[in-house]
């Protein structure tokens, strides 16, 4: 009995150790490789979700109007939508995709990141897409200018 108990316990422990990597997890770089090589925002969104049709509501994207340093521009995405995933794109850098979040049971959509934005003086549009559990896409946008570029480095 002792041995059996030990075996079942160690079996459980092994499952628990594996769980974070397998349950509910999606590596978008592996499952959707074309998203990361797309050059335009529309292409990237289509590669990610299959469509660009999105409702412009429910997603708040907060960024400064003028970023002094394009090497680290703060981004905040907030939403109360019951969502599956969140993705951020921009139209200044060579490739459009920045990040794709998977929303988990206990996650709150309130993500802060620092990103690089290339600057050529023209306004940049950053797009945040929230994929709702209802299958619809919601979008939030922010237009800003960057004083000093971050990709030339």
């Amino acid at each position: 009995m002792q041995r059996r108990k030990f075996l079942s316990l160690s079996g459980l422990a092994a499952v628990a150790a594996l769980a974070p990597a397998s349950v509910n997890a999606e590596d978008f770089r592996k499952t959707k490789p074309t998203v990361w090589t797309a050059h335009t925002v529309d292409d990237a969104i289509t590669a990610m979700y299959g469509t660009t049709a999105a409702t412009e509501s429910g997603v708040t994207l907060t960024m400064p109007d003028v970023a002094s340093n394009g090497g680290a521009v703060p981004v905040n995405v907030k939403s109360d939508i019951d969502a599956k995933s969140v993705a951020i794109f921009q139209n200044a850098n060579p490739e459009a995709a920045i990040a794709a979040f998977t929303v988990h049971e206990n996650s709150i959509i309130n993500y802060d990141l620092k990103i690089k934005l290339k600057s050529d003086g023209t306004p940049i549009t950053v797009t945040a897409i929230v994929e709702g559990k209802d299958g619809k896409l919601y979008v939030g946008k922010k237009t800003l200018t960057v004083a000093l570029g971050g990709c030339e480095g």
Partner: protein
Amino acid sequence: MKVKAKLKGDIVKVKALAKHAMTTYDQAKKKTGNSDDANFITRITATVNGKIVYEVSTSQFLSKNPIMKFQFKGASKGDKVVMTWVDRKGNTKTGKGKIK
């Protein structure tokens, strides 16, 4: 990876710092002539009690030494937030922070 977590009400706020050069393809090409030398974090995850609370696939456009903040529910004081990043070359680093 540095992880700081604080419980406020029923929400845990986490601030994390990953030390990484985050070289883009352009930067690598300028430096070494080979854009394949680019190396950046491609994936960051955070788990609490074996459950994923934060998961993101990232591109080369995160800043150098990126800082990220996020929030989640369903954890209590003293629980550990374990965060791991993986970069393009397969390097990985894990950091832990106790929820205060």
